[in-house]
């Protein structure tokens, strides 16, 4: 292959990427830039159930275990310096600043994101989306919009639950098991966690991740090649692309928030 061909290939994939971004943007715009109707709310609530409630057990259990593991590993290191009381801030800040939003987003991509892609892909391949179109109902509004909003609302809530449960997991290991004074655990923790720096940033991160993960999942489903192979490919792509996007964006946001 000549050099010119390679340059042309690069150009082609660049153009395809930009066209893809454009299509994804148009899809989202078509879905959310509408005045909501009364019955959109019940569609939204139903999707909150599918996307949010059904992810809750996973998030709760993962949060508990991650908090406990963090505390156990942290304790083993900190006890060497005789500063095991600093376990509280270590667990809380790791969870609030990074693990809460990031791990929740990754789990969400695997649990809810892939399910969204598969569901919409299946709707497309069984012509349910075309059928809505022919019934003069906009599938963007009927199918995409409620799922998008449900994702955007659910993920931050799940991240908060994950973080709170994780901190209590750390408390269980640190205080109940390893015998750190409960008072100093909380006092040092509370002294080092700051409302704006940590909690607001945690929320901002998880909202950004929510938009990105849900968007990718919906777009992958909407653009699926309508056959079983296409759906399974799209589901994998959703998990891979949204995980990478979350990790890259996390670095970017962390640099913006804590990099100074």
């Amino acid at each position: 292959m000549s050099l010119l061909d390679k340059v042309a290939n690069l150009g082609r994939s660049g153009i395809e990427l930009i066209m893809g971004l454009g299509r994804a943007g148009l899809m989202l715009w078509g879905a959310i830039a509408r005045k909501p109707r009364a019955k959109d709310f019940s569609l939204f609530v139903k999707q909150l159930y599918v996307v949010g409630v059904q992810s809750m057990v996973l998030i709760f259990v993962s949060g508990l275990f991650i908090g406990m593991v963090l505390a156990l590993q942290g304790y083993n290191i900190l006890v060497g310096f005789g500063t095991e009381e600093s376990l509280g801030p270590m667990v809380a800040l790791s969870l609030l600043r990074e693990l809460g939003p990031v791990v929740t987003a990754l789990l969400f991509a695997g649990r809810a994101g892939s399910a969204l892609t598969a569901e919409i892909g299946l709707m497309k391949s069984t012509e349910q989306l075309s059928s809505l179109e022919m019934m003069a109902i906009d599938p963007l509004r009927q199918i995409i919009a409620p799922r998008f909003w449900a994702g955007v609302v659910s993920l931050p809530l799940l991240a908060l639950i994950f973080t709170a449960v994780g901190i209590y997991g750390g408390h269980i290991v640190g205080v109940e098991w390893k015998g750190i004074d409960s008072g100093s655990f909380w006092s040092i923790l509370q002294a080092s966690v700051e409302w704006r720096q940590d909690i607001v940033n945690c929320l901002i991160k998880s909202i950004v991740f929510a938009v990105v993960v849900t968007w990718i999942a919906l777009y992958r489903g909407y653009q699926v090649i309508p056959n079983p192979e296409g759906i399974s490919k799209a589901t994998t792509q959703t998990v891979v692309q949204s995980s990478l996007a979350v990790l890259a964006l996390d670095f970017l946001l962390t640099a913006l928030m804590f990099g100074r």
Partner: protein
Amino acid sequence: MLTRKIELLVGLFILSGLAAFLVLVFNVANVEVKSNSSNYTLYAKFSNIGGLKVRSPVKVGGVVVGRVSEITLDPAELVPVVKLAMDKQFNQFPETSSLSILTSGLLGEQFLGLTPGFIDDDIAMLVDGDRIDDTHSALVLEELIGQFLYSASSKD
């Protein structure tokens, strides 16, 4: 189209999300709103509080009897003033008691050690709003090392 079960579970989901948020705000970031009536307040001035923090414990012989509730700077004397929230259960400390800032372990967290003073007929007990005058400031490790190095080198 929505069943009652779905509505209920979604409601629970949102509630637990909000509950987690409130726990994080009030319990973890400790944005204060509560006033605890089972406490009484004492004040103490130090020349240096070192690494003492709000909610650091106040201990008598290792038993936690209260917590630091506020740290401010005296505007006139420019020294730190520490406000203590003492547990009502422990209200038998005489006025002659002394406070020192101690460290748990070599690099551990700092806390307030309360040493009860002697009791005599004309010595009253500490009550709400009283000030403890006899205070010992924190040992600052860097200063100690500096002094040690200085005295070691001046001997030569």
